[in-house]
């Protein structure tokens, strides 16, 4: 009993300590450089992970807040010269708002000569056809779409080249609104583990078909199937149907956390793609946000918009990060 009381006192002091850190985080940190500042390196692909700590979150309430965060992220990316943006929410609320986002994006991007806008829903991945396969259609998964992509701006030629490998890190010399194609991915949990499961299922059915066709006996100790890390990487990341890894991820709480500081959690973001992603997160909620939330009696009614300041801070951190890749 006494020990529990002492633990409670320690937590009380810890709360006080977090409150001080929260104030420092909000009001006393150095001002990050402007969006258009020249940095050592900038991400070519940025992901925003929208997280809600509220288990009772209503989708209809969240949709507009998520849309506004997406618009804010697009504006910041365009200003910073980042041409590829993913916006992730676990439940796929943004995926369901694909048409609304397309319309809003079309309004804020300049038209081009032939095809000003290309908005497509990309279905879960199909493994590439093998050289000796006579199955023309492969094993296509006809289920729900797991990722939706909008390409905007640029030229038709540039749009056709999209999906090829690109350098992970760009060194920017000019900034401002880019005339390059801007790509927006709307991503949900389905893009991660369910897609890996669907790919595995496709690989299995293709292998089973091959074994039947070639009348290969199936024995437990036989090497019936092999795949390398690079082959699986090609399926999951490369090409029009792949989802390439973000260089930088900003994890953003859209609702006020129950505590002053909510530890970082990745909210089921696709695990394969997050291998080398730099992660930026500010878990402190401002005192004003918490006060407003308490006043309105429900955290879901106080949305925390993604701010340009957070964005700039994330870019500064990324530009100072060292990438040793195991060496």
């Amino acid at each position: 009993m006494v020990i529990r009381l002492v633990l409670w006192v320690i937590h009380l002091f810890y709360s006080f300590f977090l409150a001080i850190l929260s104030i420092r985080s909000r009001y006393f940190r150095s001002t990050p450089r402007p969006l258009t500042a020249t940095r050592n390196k900038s991400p070519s692909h940025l992901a925003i992970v929208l997280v809600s700590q509220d288990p009772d979150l209503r989708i209809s309430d969240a949709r507009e807040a998520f849309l506004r965060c997406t618009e804010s992220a697009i504006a910041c990316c365009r200003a910073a010269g980042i041409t590829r943006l993913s916006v992730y929410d676990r439940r796929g609320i943004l995926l369901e708002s694909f048409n609304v986002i397309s319309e809003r994006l079309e309004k804020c991007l300049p038209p081009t000569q032939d095809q000003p806008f290309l908005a497509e829903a990309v279905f879960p991945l199909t493994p590439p056809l093998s050289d000796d396969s006579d199955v023309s259609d492969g094993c296509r998964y006809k289920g729900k779409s797991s990722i939706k992509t909008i390409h905007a701006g640029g030229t038709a030629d540039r749009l056709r080249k999209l999906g090829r490998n690109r350098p992970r890190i760009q060194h920017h010399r000019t900034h401002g609104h880019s005339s390059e194609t801007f790509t927006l991915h709307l991503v949900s949990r389905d893009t991660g583990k369910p897609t890996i499961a669907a790919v595995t299922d496709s690989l299995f059915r293709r292998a089973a078909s091959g074994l039947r066709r070639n009348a290969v006996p199936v024995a437990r100790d036989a090497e019936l199937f092999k795949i390398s890390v690079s082959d699986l990487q090609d399926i999951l990341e490369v090409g029009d149907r792949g989802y390439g890894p973000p260089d930088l991820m900003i994890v953003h709480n859209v609702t006020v956390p129950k505590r002053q500081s909510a530890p970082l959690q990745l909210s089921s973001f696709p695990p394969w793609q997050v291998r080398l992603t730099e992660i930026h997160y500010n878990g402190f909620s401002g005192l004003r946000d918490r006060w407003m939330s308490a006043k309105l009696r429900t955290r879901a009614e106080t949305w925390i918009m993604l701010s340009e300041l957070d964005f700039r801070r994330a870019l500064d951190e990324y530009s100072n990060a060292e990438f040793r890749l195991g060496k």
Partner: protein
Amino acid sequence: MSLLQYALWFRDNAIDRVQRVLLGILKAGPIPHHVAFIMDGNRRYARDKGVQVIQGHTDGFVALRRILGICSALDIKVVSVYAFSIDNFKRPQDEVDGLMNLAEKSLLELCSYGGVLAEHGVRLNTLGRTQLFPPAVQEALAKAKELTKNNNRAVLNMCMPYSSRDEITTAVEETVHDALVEGRIEPITEKDIEDRLLTAKVKTAPLDILIRTSGVKRLSDYLLWQCTENTQIHFIDTYWPDIGLFDLLPIILDYQRKVWSQ
């Protein structure tokens, strides 16, 4: 004993007592079952101290012993550490050779009679492509696992040489293989892959907390499948050889706050 020596002894003793009392108090609240560490910063620590890189790794091993003691005192059942990445073989050969020698010596020290694993009843698992190690290290690993196989208070998963993508790819491969052997009809699910991950094979509890030291804010191909759901991830600035209880304290307090708020 000189006055300075006595003062240092008194200080160390006092710190040790405070830590023990603190650990006892923390245990009164919820404690995570499974904590993983990315032990980063040995080389930068060595550079800052002006010593050889291998000394940084040696001090890192001392830190590992210290953290295992703390985790054992807190009754954390599973500790996983990212001891060596498959990509680490790209490092300069003399550093890799030094790490292999250190691994061979350290494993036997950890697992021998009186070593920290024996002291705290910890069983050792190794997760990774151990066949890539030199024969002497493979032998030390096998011996270490044999020495600790009957320990049952806690588990130490040493991930070496490991990469999460390699783990996931192998799980995909095994899932397809098993499905072909069984003549499976129903679609393959996430659970089929998850059951074939290295952590599942050693029956490890879900990951509650992942901690990376040295200020780097990346996962670097470690436990990617396991840590993207309900795991609290902490990036702390301390270099791994310097890590101690007061680095873990806010992390444990955050975990307790999360459990109480659910």
